[in-house]
């Protein structure tokens, strides 16, 4: 699948934003009000900023951004619609939580319930995004039970490193942030490795013979494409990265995540390194998302010369 940069930016940025939002909600449940107004306001602005940049960039790739509101209507059948509804709905508890948690509005008893509500809505939104991909039976690499867990783990891990980075700026870096961050990174690495293993071992059992139905006569190969230059289908669905190149990028993703974990540990000695950890994880996120698209083969490629899918 063609890796569209707007979609990569959208999913990584909003993923980190929702992860941060969810963790801030839990921090609120555990610690009550933020320790300072500025820390609270900054953390909320970063979280909602990342989410909003992501949502805006996802509308840029639409043919008709001005009609985007229509996407809220089909939540009964469409995960994309559900994602839109959940994304917008999350703003309500998130903004209220931001106000009471940061201390802009004095209502300590509301911090915990709003924190839980925000955390749940944030993760629901991330899972809806992942469901858009995991429910497409036309793309084997996505139609996988690890797609949703990997999206959720990425969101939480990048969010946790964001939290550590912001805390370090305000002199509020704490050991529990390191523990949570490293744990999430380890879970993420394990899930991503399991995902790659799953897509590598999953048999590509649709063939060109099946697609054309001509297997009943004999062995099929492409003789002539229907047009002189690449069409939409080939550009959008025909993109597959070379295996060797993909293997290199996979190693890079894991390396960046490991370095992020090391940087987070080093931040125990010098908290400012947490910022580096967050940047490393964000970079890993971008490469991972690029691969998620580039490694995914669409079944329609069978009509265009692919032997199996």
């Amino acid at each position, binding site marked *: 699948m063609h890796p569209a940069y707007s979609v990569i930016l959208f999913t990584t940025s909003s993923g980190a934003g929702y992860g941060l939002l969810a963790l801030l909600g839990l921090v609120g449940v555990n610690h009550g009000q933020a320790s300072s107004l500025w820390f609270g306001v900054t953390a909320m602005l970063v979280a909602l900023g990342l989410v909003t940049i992501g949502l805006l960039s996802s509308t840029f790739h639409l*043919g*008709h951004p001005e009609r985007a509101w229509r*996407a809220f209507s089909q939540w009964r*059948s469409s995960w994309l619609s559900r994602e839109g509804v959940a994304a917008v709905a999350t703003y309500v508890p998130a903004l209220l939580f931001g106000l009471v948690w940061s201390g802009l509005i004095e209502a300590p008893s509301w911090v915990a319930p709003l924190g839980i509500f925000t955390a749940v809505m944030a993760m629901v939104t991330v899972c809806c995004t992942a469901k858009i991909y995991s429910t*497409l039976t036309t793309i084997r690499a996505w139609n996988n039970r690890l797609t949703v867990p990997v999206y959720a783990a990425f969101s939480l891990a990048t969010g946790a490193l964001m939290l550590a980075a912001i805390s370090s700026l305000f002199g509020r870096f704490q050991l529990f942030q390191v523990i949570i961050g490293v744990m999430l990174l380890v879970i993420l690495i394990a899930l991503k490795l399991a995902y790659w293993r799953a897509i590598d071992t999953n048999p590509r059992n649709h063939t060109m013979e099946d697609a054309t139905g001509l297997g009943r006569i004999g062995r099929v190969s492409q003789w002539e*494409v229907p047009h002189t230059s690449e069409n*939409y289908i080939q550009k959008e669905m025909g993109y597959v990265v070379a295996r060797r190149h993909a293997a290199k990028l996979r190693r890079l993703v894991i390396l960046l995540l490991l370095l992020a974990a090391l940087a987070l540990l080093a931040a125990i000695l010098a908290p400012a390194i947490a910022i580096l950890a967050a940047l490393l994880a964000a970079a890993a996120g971008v490469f991972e998302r690029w691969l998620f698209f580039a490694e995914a083969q669409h079944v*329609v490629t069978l009509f265009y010369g692919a032997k199996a899918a």
Partner: protein
Amino acid sequence: MTSLPPPSAKKLGLVIDLDTCVGCQACVTSCKEWNTQGYSEPLTDTTPYGADASGVWLNRVHGYEVKEQGQDQSRIVHFPRSCLHCETPACVTVCPTGASYKRAEDGIVLVNPETCIGCKLCSWACPYGAREYDVSHGVMKKCTLCVDRIYNENLEVEDRQPACVKACPTGARHFGDLGDADSKVSQLVAERGGYDLLPEMGYKPVNKYLPPRARRDATNQKAEALPKPDGSAFDRLFVWADKLLSGKQATVRASDLDHSSKLEG
């Protein structure tokens, strides 16, 4: 509404005969011609006369080479591909806006160009590559089963058929109600063993494909071997004359041959 309607009794669709299709592209061009002026906005072409011409087409004809067991010569099968108006199409249910829908009355799958936001998700959900995004209008396009012809009372009765069906010079495309077991198309499917594309995907296509018939004897025989050069004076004379006359061209032909031999393997 992108939730699917209850299954309709009437299932309009096409039956495509892979035996008689000669790959002339008449259906392709007539489809483009009719649909560029009808139902939705025009089917745009970008740089149609430039080096990288591309455009939106609702119907495309592939060519496949099929190597039968025990045959020396493979056969070419021309393979038209357009929307199959599936009975349970995910292209409809994934649509967030309701722009994609399946008609309850006859099962035709359409896109409303007034409400489509151009998110392209439906094209990802179609296993058959039947949906093409129109960059210049920012909306998705697909075969309409010529809904603006088949019910069009301004047309003569015999013209109330899809443009592609009317255009086909060999009668390889048939239009009708596949929900009615007694219809001509259903009988044709039963008689010729019409089949679904990728049935295991579970989309339940309405359109059916009729397989190429078995070869007749004449085409079964091995190609007669060309006489081999025997190295005689005559042969050498011809080789010399050939070189002299063809010059550069000979190398072009040789590379063509290389190309075709690659496709064989």
